[in-house]
């Protein structure tokens, strides 16, 4: 009886989940799980970005990719999102690779010839309840042998 009361009190004392963060927590959880299954061996940091977009809106950011390191760029979105487009852009702004077939989990693989800044663009192509949350991670897998 005492144990049950202690458990109940412990549950009551736990902070309630903050409202409005449900969708953000959802995409952060998904991104963490997606990163976990990748065989990362690099000491380079994982770059992460997240935000929210309405249908047909896009966002982009810059990140530096290191020479001869193989990267996986992965994007996830919340339950209301049906299609997310992920594009890797060259320093001059032209498309290098685009993934729009994987619906809500687009993934790109890329190894840079030089260490330089690349652009990553995310477009929310389908969201049935706007805005939809998304998160992107640039995961270094390891250095390729020359």
């Amino acid at each position, binding site marked *: 009886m005492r144990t049950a009361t202690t458990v109940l009190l412990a549950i009551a004392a736990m902070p309630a989940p903050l*409202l*409005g963060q449900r969708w953000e927590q959802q995409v952060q959880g998904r991104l963490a799980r997606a990163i976990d299954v990748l065989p990362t061996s690099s000491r380079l940091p994982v770059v992460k970005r997240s935000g929210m977009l309405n*249908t047909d809106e896009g966002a982009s950011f810059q990140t530096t990719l290191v020479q001869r390191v193989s990267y996986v760029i992965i994007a996830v979105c919340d339950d209301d999102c049906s299609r997310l487009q992920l594009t890797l852009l060259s320093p001059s702004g032209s498309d290098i690779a685009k993934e729009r077939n994987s619906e809500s989990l687009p993934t790109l693989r890329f190894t840079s010839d030089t260490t330089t800044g690349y652009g990553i663009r995310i477009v929310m192509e389908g969201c049935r309840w706007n*805005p939809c949350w998304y998160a992107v991670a640039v995961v270094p897998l390891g250095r390729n042998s020359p």
Partner: protein
Amino acid sequence: MASLKRWLAVGLTACFVLALAYLPPRGAESSGKSPFVGQPLWGTPARQHAQALADEWRKVDAAVRLLEDRQRVTRDSLRASPTIVFRGATLPPKDVHNVETVMDSVWRDLGLGETKVRVTLVIELQRPYSSDTPTPLQDRVAYLAPDSTHRTTCLAYLPAGPYWTLFILGKRHEGFGRFAQWLEAGLGPCAFYAAYGTPGRSVESWLVARHWDVGLYLGSHGIAGERFSSLDLLGNPSSSWYYWDGVYSFPPATVACLAGRPSGCRAAVLAGAAEERTIPIPNVVLVERRWWRVQNLLPGERYLGDVARAVGRERFLNFWTTALSVDTALAGTLKRPVGEWTAEWQRGFVHPIRLGPTPPLGGVAIALAIAVLAVVLVSVTASRRQVR
């Protein structure tokens, strides 16, 4: 001769009185209407200019206040229903709690819980007028829709007026039920943002073009009572000229829809949908003082709410976030032509009015009798006339 002078004086005095009644005061502009129609006083050009400037200032001031409030308001992250902020007076915690309790109940009645777009309700309590500073907007409801800088906040500005100010301050106790209705109606477009998120570009452009007149009220009851809608503000069709004066002040498509014509209903619903316009930033929706007189559809305030209830959440969300034109998306969602569905929807509120001349039967009979009598008299006279 004396009698003639007296009649002349009476005639001139009557002309003077008529001129006083019908001509605008010196310096004021005529409305440009027929001189045989009574004209309201328009004020001098200087006064009109001052009033127009004051009106512009109030609109800009309201927009700035909404933007400031959006920056300043800290949301209670444990409450699913709207955060409520009071302006104009500091309320004791008990009174704030009372209003929040009513709001929570309204939120549940609307079927809302945790939403992607959250609502902040700013209730402006009536302040005494000051002659030193310009009077801020205190009689018009305004909304600040989510935009690219604040995607998850919709702000509703609700002036309480003297009646609800006293009620909120605990100085008036009657009207509890109507207070909940007032709060529910005050959520306006923010209730739609909360329930269905930010609309797609074509739908948002359509709603902005028509000042959200079809999405002012999400509730299933009337906007100010169980069955009370903007149609009731027109009055009774059988009792007064006021009703018909009101009816014919609306655009032709609105009147045609009131008469149950699907083509009119279609035009009334799709007004503003033809061209996609830029969504302004900040996207401030300022509701007209007499919004029920400038609607394109009656009772338009509940139209989208009724569409959502009729088709269900999933289908309505497809329409709400569509990339198609409003016309195509709405017909697809309703699974019927927009005009037909809307005409049937309107019949649920008002019996289709009769358009065109409708002389009373007695009047027609008397007029025909007089016409026949005149023809008979002329015929008889003509037949008796002899030419010598």
